[in-house]
């Protein structure tokens, strides 16, 4: 077994590859020298291209390898390919003077044709139409899958309620901590700021009519009915929906979900029910805190910019806000939570093997959740208006 590999391997002293052509018209002689290796990859390609271009197309050729210092698979491949190409254009070529170790390498990489990479043909208009059609079909499938996943979650919930021993309290409390408790600071802060901004703009606009005290009505109704719950839902979709999809998705990638299934555990019951339940419980609590924080922000700005002292603010608030204003916001919250949970779990389960797929599904989980939350809020607005609540 040849163990001495000095002729094959790199040492930095070797010179750049060169190909020189000489010889009579009928017998061409290509003298190669230097290092035909990856370090000189582009030089190898240039030298060979020049050689092929310079060679005629009759007679025969000898490729002299005796002065090649180093050779690796790249060099060997290019050389054997060149020999093949000479043959194709009617110039039978042979190697002469190859060192034994180079000979082994040339045999190992012997030239063969490869199928070029198959690329899908794209035709402009047809593709656009096909993409649109595909998007419509997949939207329909999304909707159907959403309904069926919702059904599965509810069925699993009912099973858990019927057999309370299967209920996973530690998982639920853990999720509640992640979704609700740890989300409090950022959600309260953002709601507070939005409350300030709404109140400030309200005061500036209403001042022109001398009606700046109405800013209390504006802030109270807007925040309690819409903004509190909407801001919270969007934040939760971004914060917890994405985490939820990423967790389930990476578990799917590593076959953890299959592992649960073969142990006789229902992944929906083990993974999805605690998370959805935690969302349904946690989101109303967060929405309540968000509304309070926004009212505090509004009150503060009203005091500073609008000279409405806190006691007046509170008295007016009490006069304009009824219990149902408060309830309108809160009733919506569990539904928002359900939408976020269902979308996040569908996207999580849909993750395929690659990291790219995980990224795509987390993105679409957040985008779809936020979109659906806003659409749902619109439906609720229409509904509450219709029943005069």
């Amino acid at each position, binding site marked *: 077994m040849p163990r001495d*590999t000095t002729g094959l391997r790199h040492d930095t002293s070797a010179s750049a590859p060169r190909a020189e052509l000489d010889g009579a018209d009928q017998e061409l002689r290509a003298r190669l020298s230097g290092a035909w290796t990856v370090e000189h*990859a582009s030089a190898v390609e240039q030298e060979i291209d020049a050689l092929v271009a310079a060679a005629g197309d009759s007679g025969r050729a000898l490729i002299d390898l005796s002065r090649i210092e180093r050779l*690796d698979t790249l060099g060997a491949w290019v050389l054997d390919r060149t020999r093949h190409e000479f043959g194709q254009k009617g110039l039978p070529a042979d190697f002469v003077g190859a060192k034994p170790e180079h000979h082994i390498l040339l045999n190992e*990489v012997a030239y063969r044709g*490869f199928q070029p*990479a198959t690329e899908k043909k794209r035709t402009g208009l047809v593709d656009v139409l096909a993409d649109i059609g595909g998007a419509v079909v997949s939207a329909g499938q999304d909707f159907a899958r959403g309904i069926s996943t919702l059904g599965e979650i509810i069925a699993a919930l009912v099973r858990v309620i019927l057999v309370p021993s299967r209920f996973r309290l530690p998982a639920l409390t853990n999720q509640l901590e992640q979704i609700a408790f740890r989300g409090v600071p950022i959600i309260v802060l953002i709601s507070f700021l939005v409350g300030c901004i709404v109140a400030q703009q309200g005061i500036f606009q209403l001042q022109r009519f001398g009606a700046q005290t109405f800013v209390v009505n504006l802030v109270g109704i807007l925040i309690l009915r819409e903004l509190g719950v909407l801001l919270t839902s969007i934040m939760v979709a971004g914060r917890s929906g994405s985490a939820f999809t990423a967790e389930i998705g990476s578990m799917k990638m590593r076959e953890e979900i299959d592992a649960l299934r073969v142990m006789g555990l229902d992944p929906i019951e083990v993974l999805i029910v605690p998370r959805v339940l935690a969302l349904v419980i946690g989101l109303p609590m967060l929405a309540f805190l968000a509304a309070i924080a926004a009212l505090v922000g509004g009150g503060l700005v009203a005091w500073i910019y609008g000279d409405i002292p806190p006691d007046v603010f509170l008295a007016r608030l009490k006069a304009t806000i009824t219990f149902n204003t408060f309830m309108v916001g809160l009733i919506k919250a569990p539904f928002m939570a359900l939408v976020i949970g269902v979308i996040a779990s569908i996207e999580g389960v849909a993750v*395929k*093997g*690659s990291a790219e797929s995980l990224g795509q599904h987390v993105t679409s989980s957040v985008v779809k959740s936020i979109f659906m939350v806003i659409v749902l809020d619109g439906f609720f607005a229409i509904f509450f208006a219709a029943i005069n609540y």
Partner: protein
Amino acid sequence: MARSPAANGADRSREAIIRVRELEVGFGERLILKKLDLDVYRGEILGFVGPSGQGKSVLTRAILGLNPKRGGSIEVFGEDLDGMSGESRKSVERRWGVLFQQGALFSALTVRQNVQVPMREYLKLSERLLDELAMLKIEMVGLKPDAADKLPSELSGGMIKRASLARALALDPEILFLDEPTSGLDPIGAGEFDELIATLQRTLGLTVFMVTHDLDSLYTVCDRIAALGDGRIIAEGPIDEMLASEDPWVRSYFHGKRARAVAGGIEG
């Protein structure tokens, strides 16, 4: 594939391509490698064994620069990795190829694109040659050409190892690091993989550093074996020397029931 030990391992005059001296690596309070010395000689296949959790992968990762070390020195190609500038460090990195235990293929790229990643990064080549070289490597490791356009998630465990080896070989490295290359392969597939490593080592003149638990690999392809225990090398040498070792772990490893079955199968 039997080799005479005298021609390989016993010859200490050969050039050490990797030289590890007094290496110390630890996490937190725990010291994993304690003043470890190891030489890997040019052109050999070194099998690296040891109980699970004793730091075989840690040593590999320390040599590759993935785990920080606390003390000692690592020389590769005769240069100390510590005192190196970014550029020369890069030029060392393109002279070695690594096969990770789980393959570590880029999941968003096809096998062909995976193999082309290091080529595109380091070489200026025409698209045609890039494609041809990628296909050449893919065929060299024994994959069918139709595997080239598959994504890693569509490959079986054995195919992932082969594809990952093709990527490790993309730049014609001088040193090949293999982390448990045959784990998870069926015995026939593992045997073929061993054969492949030996063929590549012969034709390309590779130096192979192989972490393995596969006794078949140790018997058939490794020129020399080093055993890790308690943070240092407890025994090293060709298989005959390992069989004669007095160390209790090495004895039970090479004289256990499974080892006897392998040895019997190969000698008989």
